[in-house]
């Protein structure tokens, strides 16, 4: 008797939702995710409180006798962006190096480890054997990276406010409104899509070579890193948010297509 096989079709939605469900569960079970979120929350608190404690303290240079007076933060929102009349963000001091934009680099570690783990464990092999669509894989990873990045930004924002409150700093927005603050955060969240798309592309190209993907992603991210504070300032409006959203979507689509092509044209093992 001739044997036959019944084929069951899985639609795009079912395949993607399955993959997203797995990636979401994996993210919630991942230690790196919690470490990054904890860092995003604790770093601004520690930094703000410590800098506030050191405010006004003097240090004397033993050779020149020059006296330097430490300047602590005056405003809780200094970690998020530059207030009108304030100094530019991104200087080579602790505040400049460890502001909210750090999250863009932090998420790089998450995306690179998440994707390289897929290839190292053989999960990607199983996935591509039973699920033929590479594009869906890229969508799923980009969304997970975006979610992690967005959460890091939100936690950093909350940490800054909390740190400011603990240190007794001013919450005055110097003529800006809370809408500006929200738009600034929203712009950064949308910009996260640009960074995550870059990290995803580099990670799928590097596959199981974690260090290569982390170094490549940090290098690639650095090129755009300086732009973040300019595109998403503290006085951001809906125009900034809209531009960031458009940029994020364009980057995600363009780089997502390239990532899919890379997966299609290269060996998956």
């Amino acid at each position, binding site marked *: 008797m001739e044997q036959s*096989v019944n084929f069951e079709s899985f639609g795009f939605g079912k395949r993607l939702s399955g993959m997203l469900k797995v990636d979401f569960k994996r993210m919630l079970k991942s230690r790196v995710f919690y470490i990054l979120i904890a860092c995003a929350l604790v770093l601004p608190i520690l930094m703000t409180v410590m800098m506030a404690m050191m405010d006004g303290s003097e240090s004397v240079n033993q050779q020149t006798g020059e006296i330097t007076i430490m300047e602590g933060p005056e405003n809780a929102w200094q970690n998020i962006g530059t207030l009108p009349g304030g100094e530019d963000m991104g200087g080579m001091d602790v505040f400049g190096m460890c502001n909210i934009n750090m999250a863009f680099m932090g998420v790089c570690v998450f995306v690179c480890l998440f994707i390289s783990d897929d290839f190292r*464990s053989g999960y990607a092999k199983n*996935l591509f054997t039973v699920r*033929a669509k590479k594009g869906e894989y890229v969508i799923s990873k980009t969304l997970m990276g975006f979610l992690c990045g967005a959460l890091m930004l939100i936690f950093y924002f909350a940490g800054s406010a909390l740190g400011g409150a603990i240190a007794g700093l001013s919450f005055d927005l110097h003529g800006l409104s809370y809408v500006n603050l929200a738009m600034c955060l929203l712009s950064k969240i949308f910009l996260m899509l640009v960074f995550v798309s870059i990290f995803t592309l580099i990670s799928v190209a590097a596959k199981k070579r974690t260090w290569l993907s982390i170094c490549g992603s940090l290098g690639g991210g650095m090129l755009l890193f300086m732009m973040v504070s300019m595109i998403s300032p503290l006085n951001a409006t809906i125009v900034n948010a809209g531009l960031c959203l458009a940029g994020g979507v364009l980057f995600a689509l363009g780089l997502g297509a390239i990532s899919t092509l890379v997966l299609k044209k290269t060996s998956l093992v």
Partner: protein
Amino acid sequence: MNAIEIKGLSKNFGAKQAVCALDMTVPMGAIYGFIGENGSGKSTTEKMICGLIPKSGGSIKIYGRDHTDKDVRAKMGVLIEAPGCFGGLSVFDNMMLQAANLSIPNAEREVIKTLKMVRMEGAAGNKYKNCSLGMKQRVGIAMALLGDPTLLVLDEPLNGLDADGMRIMREIFLDIVRDGRRTILVSSHLLGELQKVATHYGIIRHGKMICEMTAEQLDADCRTYVALQSAEMSRTKALLGCKYTRVEEDEAGYLRVYDQTTPEEVVTYLYKEGIPVTEIKTDKIGLEEYYIDLMKGGN
């Protein structure tokens, strides 16, 4: 309909041709033993079947459809090198993730059923990284079995297993194909073990399929020989070498006569030459010897 039908498959890595015009037919319901030395192109062929590396030429049909067809893919389970488990998660959690990925309804029940099938139900709570090699291989097969695939592609699943592990794995293979719905393509270097379960064989060398056969054909092809021991082995060997075309001494110290003959004829001949035979028997060469013979270019 065949489970896998490959015609003229080739794969080039730069100037190196890893697989060259390979033809292969895996019937449905078979346990197909895919045999070849290291670097012969077994894994490359399996990876191409699974769509993990692009082919340079030829065609791969699975159940009569192109191997890239997404509906066909959903019918496959694969264990190539790593099984796709995350070390920090338990066996059960890893299986549940795979079940979610495959959108399996009643996932928990299916996972438990599959773990029972590979005799791993007692170790479901163990972290994957703490499992022994044998357990990891079985988890890999369980992962491949989730979603009720009808074609399993297993690359060297017997590697590193102890005797009991091998026995369990053989039982699992037989359980998998018992109802005739599923097909297994399995590559292994452990030919003796493979011979105990395989129903079909394909032998690959330098990227080319040099022969395909059923277990029955192999059985018929495996020549019988007369093995004997005598008090004067070196003289016996010399004497037998004069009369027969192929006489070899095996690792156990027996002289083997591969020509068409009988133990009676050999004993009579040696008796006439004054050599007493201490032990004599007839036996059949196994898959391993058949393979070595074939690689040497013998018959």
